[in-house]
């Protein structure tokens, strides 16, 4: 990489000046609401965000560390950090969950595995705000079993025909492309017959349905593919080597999110404000049992914060263990989110069964309860985290595997006739 032409301090100053001149302050503009918007409103909002992203791109503040040949600036990471620090108070483009997926997961995975031609085609458009990518990853039939996808791409002359279905794609209803994992060889073992494709969301044969969640919101989607035509240009990475690409993607996915946000503030004497408020609203702040429930939640909250600190240290110490150690954070959330939701339920003492008025603390108790198992289920269930900790961190002997050594076609057939007989 050639020496950058501009010093870091000059860069920082210029960026600050540009930001002040071109972007509003963060608190002046509210975040877009993609979930509740009408179709028209949604398009208007997205277009507005695209315009801001375009402005960033034109000014050279998009893809600061990305290669120049793919539309980036080719600068060292400290320039990106400097820009981020300057930009903290400004309202940057907000594409909701699809934004994080596009820039944090998909593009980074593409950079690692995409062909130069693919990258030249897509990355500049991503940086310019013209292409939002989401993941078409889980099949309805394969959740935690990530490699068990049955959505398939079949060779048809020099093109591919994609059929099947994907689910849990966050924000697909307003994205442009999906990064899609499909089976391209049914006779290879499960992990070896998979390929990643870039699929235009609005291509013929693609149907996107939003999934209404139990809390009422609907950020996730399910897609149906009915012989969607793709070409070799759409392949990301090597054909039938999709599992290698997947590993990279998971790394970015886990690094990018999935960890518990610290709940408790810095001062261990500060009790959880939400629960204190809840108890006050039902008139039981003076009840010793309620006090035990609140302090119990507080103890857990603080310990979870401390755990995240420890996990960070452990990861720094031994990067080989990082994936296993990260599972502690996930499992802690998976375990204690429901515990905390149940404590709140008990504190509410009936106020969560019915309440008068939308702003009542009890209303939040209910949505917290309903979504409390999210971390136990999404992005690898607790069962997967326990396997990961057991095998990767604790070094316990592996589980027997029934799906890795034979053609996937047989795996599917044998699973239907499961008898438990092995030897």
């Amino acid at each position, binding site marked *: 990489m050639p020496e950058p032409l501009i010093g870091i301090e000059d860069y920082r100053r210029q960026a600050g000046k540009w930001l002040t001149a071109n972007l509003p302050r963060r608190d002046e503009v509210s975040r877009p609401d993609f979930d509740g918007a009408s179709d028209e409103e949604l398009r208007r909002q997205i277009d507005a965000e695209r315009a801001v992203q375009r402005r960033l791109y034109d000014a050279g503040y998009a893809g600061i560390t990305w290669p120049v040949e793919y539309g980036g600036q080719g600068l060292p990471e400290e320039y990106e950090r400097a820009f981020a620090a300057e930009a903290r108070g400004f309202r940057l483009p907000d594409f909701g969950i699809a934004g994080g997926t596009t820039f944090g997961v998909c593009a980074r995975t593409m950079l690692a595995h995409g062909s130069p031609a693919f990258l030249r085609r897509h990355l500049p458009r991503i940086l310019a705000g013209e292409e939002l990518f989401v993941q078409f990853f*889980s099949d309805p*039939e*394969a*959740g*935690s*079993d990530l490699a*068990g996808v049955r959505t398939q791409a079949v060779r048809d002359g020099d093109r591919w025909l994609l059929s099947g279905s994907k*689910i*849990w794609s966050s924000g697909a209803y307003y994205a442009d492309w999906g990064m899609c994992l499909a089976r391209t060889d049914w006779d290879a073992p*499960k992990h070896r017959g998979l390929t990643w494709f870039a699929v235009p969301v609005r291509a013929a044969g693609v149907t996107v349905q939003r*999934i*209404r*969640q*139990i809390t*009422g919101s609907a950020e*996730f989607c399910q897609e149906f593919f009915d012989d969607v035509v793709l070409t070799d240009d759409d392949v990301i990475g090597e054909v039938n080597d999709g599992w290698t690409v997947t590993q990279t993607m998971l790394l970015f996915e886990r690094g990018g999110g999935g960890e518990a946000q610290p709940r408790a503030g810095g001062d261990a004497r500060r009790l959880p404000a939400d629960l204190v408020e809840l108890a006050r609203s*039902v*008139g*039981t702040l003076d*009840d010793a*049992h309620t006090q035990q429930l609140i302090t119990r939640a507080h103890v857990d909250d603080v310990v979870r914060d401390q755990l995240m600190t420890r996990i960070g240290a452990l990861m720094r110490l031994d990067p080989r263990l990082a994936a296993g150690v990260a599972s502690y954070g996930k499992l802690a959330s998976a375990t204690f989110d*429901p515990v905390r939701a*149940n404590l709140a*339920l*008990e504190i*509410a*003492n*009936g*106020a*969560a*069964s*019915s*309440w*008068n*008025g*939308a702003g009542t603390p009890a*209303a939040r108790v*209910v949505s917290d*309860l*309903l*979504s*409390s*198992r*999210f971390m*136990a*289920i*999404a992005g690898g*269930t607790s*069962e997967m985290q*326990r396997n990961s900790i057991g095998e990767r961190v604790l070094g316990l002997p592996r589980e027997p*595997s*029934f*799906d890795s050594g034979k053609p996937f076609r047989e*795996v*599917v057939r*044998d*699973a*239907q006739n*499961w008898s*438990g007989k092995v030897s």
Partner: protein
Amino acid sequence: MGVRLFPEISGEQRLMLDSVIRLVESNCPLPVVRRQAEQNRLGDADLRREFADLGCFGLLVHEDHGGGSLSGNGVVDAALVASERGARLQPGPFVGTNVVAYALSEAGTTPGLEALADLVAGKASAVWAFDGALVGDRRSVLAVRQDGDELVLDGTVCGVQGADECDWILVSALSSDGPVQVLVANPTGGMTLERVDGMDITRRFSDIHFSSVRVPARQRLGGSADAEGLLNRQLAVACVLSAAESVGAMDANFQLALEYSRVRIAFGRPIGSFQAVKHLLANTSLLLEMAKAVVAGAAVKLGAGAPDGPALASIAKAFVGERAVELTHNCFQVFGGIGYTWEHDQHLFMRRLASESFLYGSPVAHRRSLWSHADVSTGARTGERTGGRVDA
């Protein structure tokens, strides 16, 4: 498939339960419950009359008053019906109407008897609105005073399930002279029903506000002889029926998860073949069997008039209240992502079970009640359970 709250039931009970199940499944199966909830519609009065024709609202009523049980133990019969209704997340004031019918029949006072006949016949329905102090809920407070030959009611009772579709409200206040129970027609001047939001969307809840509501004193239930005893038995009946509804919902929720674990494939095996899932389901199944056992036991003793019937009812309510929440969490874990979708029924069960846990007193409140009614100086049996406030 029935809930099997009792492993062994009589042919007569089986016949009635089959009729109840048929009635529900052809008129108000889960998709209908869901639609009704999403469209915010009131319950079906015709369906209520059909339940009444099967005898569902007379099980706790003396034969002299037009009621009658199948087995001689009306609480058992009513609990059986409640469990099957609970399994299908039925809306409507089934517990309320039965408890009020029970109270009116036990009290046997004349004005109540006219209303009672309508309840038994399904021409009217009722709910029970009581001072929260009875179960340690500080949100509901009622004051009652006598003014000449009238009783004057003031205060609010929160979250009365099914109140917006009822014709009668049995109001129970706690005065310094003991409990005062009085039957109030809906509507009545000074009494306002306010629909409120609820966790359990299969049901509708209201706050009932009383602003100098005047009722003729002769509408007061029963003499004062065993006023506290009656109030406590009422609460016990409500607890057993509420717990029976929960147990039904627990059973249905569990069966759904069990079935899913048999057909869902991951890693080349049905997920139910993994110890992680199999053992979770086994543990959950134990909780379910225990819940059924204690609700059945409480129904038997309470219906037979055993002195420790009300204590057993509290035990059943306390156990089921906590374990229902645990069970629905466990089932959720088996479903994984699909359980997060609005279209899946998992959230309806979670909403119902978590909500029901706090109706008629939380587990903590019932444990407090157990303590306050026990004789700890010897650890031995006490005299009759007596009324008393449970402080939250």
